[in-house]
């Protein structure tokens, strides 16, 4: 079987996480419909756009992280089209002179980045029996990232998007919870690589599905045409929107309300370490590559791990399993978790002065309030019982009070041992030295 040759290019739209909108001071926070609005983002006659510097700095970070050639001037254009989600019936975007061009991004191979530019998001539309428009989103800054058709499989596309979003988090320009949207172009060798673009696909699962669906469709069809298609997420298939000859003409002009912005002073900005570099750092410290990858999925978690002082490999295990468990969907910053105290907790377990299960319970408390681990263990008398006499005394009592379980174990029921240990822990509130307890019980039964 010959290998299928496919070319995939992505045009990705990512919401940049600024405090206020791109051209007005309205907040970008979630809110009830049409409450974060003003004359500018509603397109009232006479209102004028004023560019948000935070968004400008962030688009430069993005273009830089994607290894683009950068322009010293930020120039906006007007893209004209009539659609109910556009308050002005034109969108302020960049056209001839995007802020970044000719970059690349490594993700299972080198993917060339054609351009990166800054633009405003339109309003959001909900269609019921009516069309409802929420202008809260109108004017939110978007980064548009366009790749060359260098991606060769749906899996590579997915990996690319995942890594891209991860790095955008590392740049602190993107909130993980925002959905990502993309126009996906797919072409196959069989059709002589006729370019088919699928507009407005939301989320990476659907992006992957669109690619798989289009490859199947284009392989099957007699004639593939250059065209623009839409994605029916419910029916899981694409449909034709317009053929090449009727390609939309946006009749761009330069945005005359915004003078050219000199951004040369922002171009020297230093990039923070991105995920690949962080993963490499952690592996060098002895962390298992798989664990390093999982830890670096989230920047807040990677930052937390970096601040810990306990032995890296053991700590990485705790971060991956326990920290992620107690965090749930919260960012580290939203909790009381502290890397130094977290390390102390692990060290207590490692020194066998604290039982693991108790440590896990303490970790949950540390999420919700500030805790000095050592003091807390001391105060609540939670240290592991290490005194052989004390352990023996409890074991004796457990065996005496649970004669039936002892008999069960002797008659071959392995589970009975766990039950006995459990009873012991109940009496000691989980503090008995687990290994010693186990050994002592066995010694006495057999």
């Amino acid at each position: 079987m010959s290998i299928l040759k496919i070319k995939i290019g992505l045009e990705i739209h990512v919401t940049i996480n600024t405090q206020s909108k791109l051209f007005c001071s309205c907040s970008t926070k979630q809110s009830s419909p049409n409450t974060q609005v003003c004359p500018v983002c509603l397109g009232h006659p006479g209102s004028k756009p004023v560019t948000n510097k935070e968004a400008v700095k962030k688009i430069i970070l993005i273009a830089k992280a994607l290894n683009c050639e950068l322009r010293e001037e930020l120039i906006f254009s007007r893209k004209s089209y009539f659609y109910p989600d556009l308050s002005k019936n034109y969108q302020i975007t960049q056209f001839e002179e995007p802020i970044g061009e000719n970059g690349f991004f490594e993700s299972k191979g080198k993917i060339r980045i054609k351009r990166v530019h800054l633009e405003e998001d339109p309003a959001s539309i909900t269609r019921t029996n009516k069309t409802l428009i929420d202008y809260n989103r109108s004017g939110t800054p978007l980064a548009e990232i366009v790749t060359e058709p260098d991606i060769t499989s749906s899996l590579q596309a997915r990996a690319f998007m995942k890594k891209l979003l991860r790095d955008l988090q590392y740049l602190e320009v993107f909130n993980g919870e925002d959905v990502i949207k993309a126009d996906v172009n797919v072409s196959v060798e069989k059709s002589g690589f006729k370019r088919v673009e699928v507009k407005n696909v939301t989320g990476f699962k659907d992006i992957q599905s669109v690619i798989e669906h289009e490859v199947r469709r284009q392989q099957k069809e007699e004639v593939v045409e250059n065209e623009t298609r839409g994605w029916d997420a419910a029916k899981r298939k694409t449909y034709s929107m317009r053929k090449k000859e009727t390609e939309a003409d946006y009749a761009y002009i330069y945005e005359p309300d915004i003078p050219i912005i000199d951004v040369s002073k922002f171009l020297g900005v230093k990039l923070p370490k991105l995920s690949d570099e962080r993963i490499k750092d952690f592996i060098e410290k002895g962390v298992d590559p798989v664990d390093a990858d999982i830890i670096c999925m989230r920047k807040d978690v990677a930052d937390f791990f970096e601040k810990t002082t306990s032995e890296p490999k053991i700590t990485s295990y705790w971060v991956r399993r326990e920290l992620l468990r107690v965090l749930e969907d919260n960012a580290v910053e939203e909790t009381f978790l502290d890397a130094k105290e977290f390390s102390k907790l692990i060290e207590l377990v490692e020194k066998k002065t604290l039982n693991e299960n108790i440590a896990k319970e303490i970790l949950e408390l540390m999420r919700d309030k500030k805790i000095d681990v050592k003091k807390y263990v001391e105060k609540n008398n939670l240290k592991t019982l290490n005194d052989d006499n004390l352990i023996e005394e409890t074991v004796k009592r457990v065996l005496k009070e649970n004669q039936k379980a002892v008999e069960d174990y002797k008659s071959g029921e392995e589970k009975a041992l766990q039950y006995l240990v459990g009873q012991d822990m109940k009496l000691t509130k989980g503090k008995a030295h687990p290994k010693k307890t186990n050994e002592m019980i066995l010694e006495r039964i057999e």
Partner: protein
Amino acid sequence: MNYFLAKNKDVKPCKGKLKGYTISVKDNICTKGLETTAGSQILKGYKPVFDATVIEKIKASGGDILAKANMDEFGFGSFNINTHKVPQNPLDKSRVTGGSSGGSAAAVKDLDNHISIAESTGGSIANPASFCGVVGYTPTYGLVSRYGLIDYANSLDKIGIVSRKVRECKMMMNIIQGQDFKDSTSIKHEEDYEKKSLEVKGMTLGVPKEYLEASKEVKEAFEKTISQLKSKGVKIKSVSLKKNANYSIPTYYLIAMSEASTNLAKYSGLRYGVEGNTNLKYNDYFKQVRTEYFGDEAKRRIVLGTYARMAGFREQYYDKALRVRTLLIDEYKEVFKEVDAIIHPTMPMVAPRFEEVKNLDPLAIYQMDLLTVGANLGGFPHISIPMKKEGLPAGIMITGNHLEDFKVLSIGEHIEN
């Protein structure tokens, strides 16, 4: 005489520096709660939720707005006849006021102690000032905030002043000038325009030889003014603005219409202004609203402006016009190296009669803007001062280099006296 559109029923008498005056403002400048239509039926009933920056400043100085001044729809016109309620020239009701700020000029002519805030894109202040015999001043682009000005062509629109005397322009300029963070194209440059005028004696004024084609009566008045200036010790020098004479009209109209056609896209009866038949689908709905409520000139400029920026034509028209604009500005700048200011008639004729302009084709009307377009395209400060003493009025236009507004006002005041 129809020079006002909406009137402010609750107008308060002006206080402070503006005491004794009434103030009107061109209808394309937003006034909170007071109907603002930019002379268009499509914005009928629209009451802005905010005051334009200039209005805020006037109010902060003790002023209030008496009424909205009539204008050609969105500023599209030279005679103020592209409106649903055509104003008449106070000096002869069978004649036009000029445009597009016709309401402002007519009101100032008709009412004592009245100042009007107007706006010019290609000559819309100087033109009606000339036809109505009043002073019309257009500042350097960027000196006055455009926040709250309903856009015609953003890179060309300038808010200015119409008054009886230059002194009143200076007073009002002191109030409305200043950089505004809400208008990114406004610039940081403030001056006390009410200080003593510059000595005009010894200045050199340039007369562009291409800008002298005018009616006999206008020519005579201009020549008379020139000889008076000479007798007062002003040097007159013949200069050339050949490129502007040849290319400023097409360049201006290409840029202005391209920008205008995008600015007008928002008027679709969706969120403000008139409402159409809401049973229609989106495309049919806005098509119906725009067909019914835009005037012919607005439609013409949308079509031409859209054409000039479409793929395949943009390079040839819109992009080229932008490049030519730079050349035309450079030509003015070259002349300003040799002269203090440029003077020529504002309009080549006195105010025409309604029946004279009724049958003019659009191209002929666009050509009439020749004398005012160059200064506007370059964002140069200019003022029109009545120069013709007998019969119908005509203005002389004084254009200065960027930010030399005070010099332009000083020369204007000198000619006025």
